């Protein structure tokens, strides 16, 4: 695959169109944005914080949070940095903005003002514009990131980077396939090429902006290698456009050893693939997401899930952990509930900070080897499909089911892969769809699932998958029959 930067004149031409898509676009001025970013104190730079976490072997904690109105949003973030002791702050964007439905977001803002509480599930940053974003980023003391799920996030990027955010989540695959239904994959990949080029431009001008592809995808029984391949591909595409600070993510699967294997192998494999593609000037860090699937409704049980996630993050020594709240199963958390998830996480992390726990053993090694082989199968297939052009390769791979994300809503995803847990809770494949995995690999998966089927005296069916999806919310890891 060849990696080429977007031509600057193409970027600027597109830019004119992008900024016209909503009135607040006209307030964005690239150079003024750079100047503004230069004035942000270093300790508030996200890229720098991630780098320091790596060299200091620290795990930083970050919540998700966003409400409709600026003042409420500031109050929320301040609570999370003081009471919650968050190291890094988010601004989670509402779902209308994510679909570029700014008019509906405007209705949401109005209704929220009228109701006195947020009717939007996030912060409509485009509607609030550059100045609204600056009010937010200036009101806090910690590095702050845009977190969303937007297939075409060009305008949001323009506004929020000029608005003082120093990290931007997402990617052309990870913010399309799990988050959209009918958005053409090529379109979202190209939109994200624009975003990455914008970040690259900031980098060229001395402003480091952290980029974070969204690792957990659908958050539901995702075998590590699928997420890893997406993360590596989006990493390559970002580096191609001049991104330097890159954070790859993985969502807790629930089996501790599989999670540990996944986290170490993500770091290793990404480093290798990036180097192989000729990139060297990058700063790679890893983020772990606490359990991304259905949570238990009971708050005590939710705290247990949260703590277990924190345990894995500590054992794996990742640079960042994204924290859930005890309200997860029920609704967007209050600021208090959100802070309490942070506090529980902090407590586990700091109790484990000086400990070395199960960093390595035979099972972890077996799983790492497996993940490495699986990733190789898929990466080779994408390369072969690419004919030199990575975006082409990715589109063809999804069309042919060589890449396929379980449970995703997008019509550009085949959706024929079916995962299930084995008898020890490792996530395996029971149907590989069209994924280009070798027979060796698949027979390992099948054997492990057969073992469980035998233990449960039932065949491996969709019922088992359903049971596994519900399991953690029903206080189990594996969805055994009653």
């Amino acid at each position, binding site marked *: 695959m060849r990696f080429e930067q977007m031509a600057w004149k193409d970027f600027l031409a597109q830019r004119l169109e992008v900024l016209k898509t909503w009135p607040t676009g006209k307030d964005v001025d690239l150079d003024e944005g750079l100047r503004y970013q230069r004035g942000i104190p270093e300790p508030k730079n996200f890229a720098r914080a991630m780098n320091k976490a790596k060299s200091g072997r620290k795990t930083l904690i970050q919540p998700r949070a966003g409400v409709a109105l600026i003042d409420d949003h500031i109050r929320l973030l301040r609570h999370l940095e003081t009471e919650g002791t968050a190291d890094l702050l988010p601004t989670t964007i509402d*779902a*209308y903005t*994510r*679909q570029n*439905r700014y008019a*509906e977001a405007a*209705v*949401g803002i109005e*209704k929220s003002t009228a109701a006195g*509480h*947020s*009717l*939007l*599930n996030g912060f409509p940053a485009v509607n609030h514009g550059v100045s609204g974003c600056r009010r937010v980023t200036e009101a806090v003391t910690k590095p702050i990131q845009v977190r969303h*799920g937007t297939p075409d996030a060009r305008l949001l990027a323009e506004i929020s980077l000029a608005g003082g955010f120093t990290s931007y989540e997402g990617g052309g695959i990870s913010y399309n396939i*799990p*988050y*959209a*239904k*009918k958005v053409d994959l090529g379109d979202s990949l190209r939109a994200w090429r624009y975003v990455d080029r914008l970040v690259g431009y900031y980098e060229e001008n001395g402003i480091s902006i952290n980029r974070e592809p969204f690792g957990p995808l*659908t958050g*539901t029984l995702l075998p590590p290698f699928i997420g890893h391949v997406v993360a590596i591909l989006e990493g390559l595409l970002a580096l191609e456009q001049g991104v330097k600070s890159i954070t790859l993510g993985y969502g807790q699967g629930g089996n501790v050893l599989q999670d540990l294997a996944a986290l170490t192998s993500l770091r290793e494999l990404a480093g290798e693939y990036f180097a192989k593609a000729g990139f060297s000037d990058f700063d790679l860090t890893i983020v772990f997401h606490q359990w991304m*699937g*259905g949570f238990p*409704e009971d708050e005590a049980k939710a705290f247990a899930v949260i703590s277990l996630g924190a345990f894995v993050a500590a054992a794996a020594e990742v640079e960042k952990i994204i924290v859930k709240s005890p*309200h997860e*199963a*029920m*609704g*967007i*958390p*209050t600021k208090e*509930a959100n802070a309490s998830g942070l506090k529980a996480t902090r407590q586990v992390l700091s109790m484990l900070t000086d400990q070395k726990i199960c960093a390595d053993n035979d099972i972890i090694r077996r799983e790492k080897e497996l993940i490495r082989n699986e990733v190789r199968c898929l990466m080779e297939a994408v390369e072969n499909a690419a004919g030199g052009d990575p975006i082409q390769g990715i589109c063809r791979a999804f069309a042919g089911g060589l890449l396929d994300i379980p*449970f*995703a*809503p997008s019509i550009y995803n085949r959706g024929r892969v079916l995962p299930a847990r084995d008898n020890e809770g490792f996530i395996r494949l029971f149907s590989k769809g069209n994924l280009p995995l070798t027979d060796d690999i698949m027979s390992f998966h099948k054997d492990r699932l057969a073992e469980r089927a035998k233990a449960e005296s039932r065949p491996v069916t*969709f019922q088992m998958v*359903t049971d596994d*999806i519900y399991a953690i*919310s029903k206080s189990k890891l594996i969805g055994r029959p009653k």
Partner: protein
Amino acid sequence: MNPTHLVLGVIGADCHSVGNKILDAYFTEAGFHVTNLGVMVSQDEFIDAAVETDAAAILVSSLYGHGEIDCEGLRAKCVERGLDRILLYVGGNLVVGKTPYAEVEKKFLDMGFNRVFGPQVDLAEVVELLRSDIAAAGRK
């Protein structure tokens, strides 16, 4: 006997697809004929599909918190389109934030839904209710 038709989907700009796939499988297994519109379904798409399949009920999901905004006016639109007897069920994480179920239920009943379900609902019970509601509505 023809199976009863249902229309299923996740309303608005909501992308939560996991529950939708499970609901599809569950109601199909229970003997209904399910037209699953998937995620990100507009009110008009729901109604078009219901008209087309002569559905007994529309099962609306909303997980992401905008349910309150997205569902408003659905009943009126149904009536407008001649679906005056259609059952409207809604379920999921219907509003923004952890909210007592009774409050949420009232809000959506007032909007014209026949039944309102939280995320922890037992689907077997829903099937029971649906069967009896359909029978009571004089359809089959």
